[in-house]
């Protein structure tokens, strides 16, 4: 069973991330590197991608003639996907355990010194091999 583990954040979260001290960024890179290697060694790793920052995000709609209409304005509260992992595991619980590992990645206190130590929430959903059954019924 394949699951997708998604890290998301608002623009404010991304702004915070750009202000991390170098030491904290290095600690995070080292963690991610070891984490991905461990997933690969265990055979659970399927894919992982990091996305460009939200300031590069565009919303695209088809105009009447089918041409793309692009817009770069988003609500403050919008959650942007920062990156994801896809893992192939035996059960949902196994996916949740892996998500908890990603959640526990090292980070500086949120909102500066003395801020919260809250772990990063990771959204977990099964990846379907075809269209979701609930859409096909």
């Amino acid at each position, binding site marked *: 069973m394949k699951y997708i583990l998604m890290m998301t954040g608002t623009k404010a979260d991304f702004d915070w991330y750009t202000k991390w001290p170098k030491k904290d960024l290095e600690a995070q890179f080292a963690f991610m590197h070891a984490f991905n290697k461990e997933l690969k060694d265990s055979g659970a790793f399927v894919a992982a991608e990091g996305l460009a920052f939200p300031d590069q995000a565009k919303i695209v709609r*088809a105009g009447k003639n089918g041409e793309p209409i692009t817009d770069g304005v988003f609500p403050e509260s919008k959650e942007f996907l920062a990156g994801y992992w896809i893992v192939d595991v035996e059960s949902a619980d196994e996916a949740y355990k892996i998500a908890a590992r990603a959640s526990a990645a090292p980070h500086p206190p949120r909102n500066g010194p003395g801020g919260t130590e809250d772990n990063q929430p990771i959204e977990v959903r099964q990846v379907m091999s075809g269209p979701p059954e609930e859409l096909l019924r």
Partner: protein
Amino acid sequence: MKYILMMASTKAGVNGYKAWPDKDIQTHFAYLHALNKELSESGEFVATQPLAGPNEAKLVRAGKDGAPITDDVFPEAKEFLLGYWIVDVESPQRAFEIAARLSAGPGPGGVPTNMPIEVRQIMSGRAEELDTAGSGARIERSR
């Protein structure tokens, strides 16, 4: 250049799709299937994945002992990723054109849904090798 084209919707939006007549759902998926085939033939197709519905989504955090704490309560306004396409194209404009094709997919009665598609560049190479999430983006951006 790789771009990810993301289709997202709220729970209310997903409930809207579920109410589509079967015929319209089939027409929509036939459209997507033809588009996937076209992108494969043009060499631009990298990957696509549909995701399980929002009702199955869990938010996972590590507890103090590192054990997963799962939660499935989300704000009404939350946009859930429903599926994505990754395409390898020559320019952002081409990614936008493909996103517009997705947006123009037929809805009920064959009327284009005009649903919004979020487009972002994928930070290739690094993302595959080492980093995930914002890390790759950060490196790329600081160049």
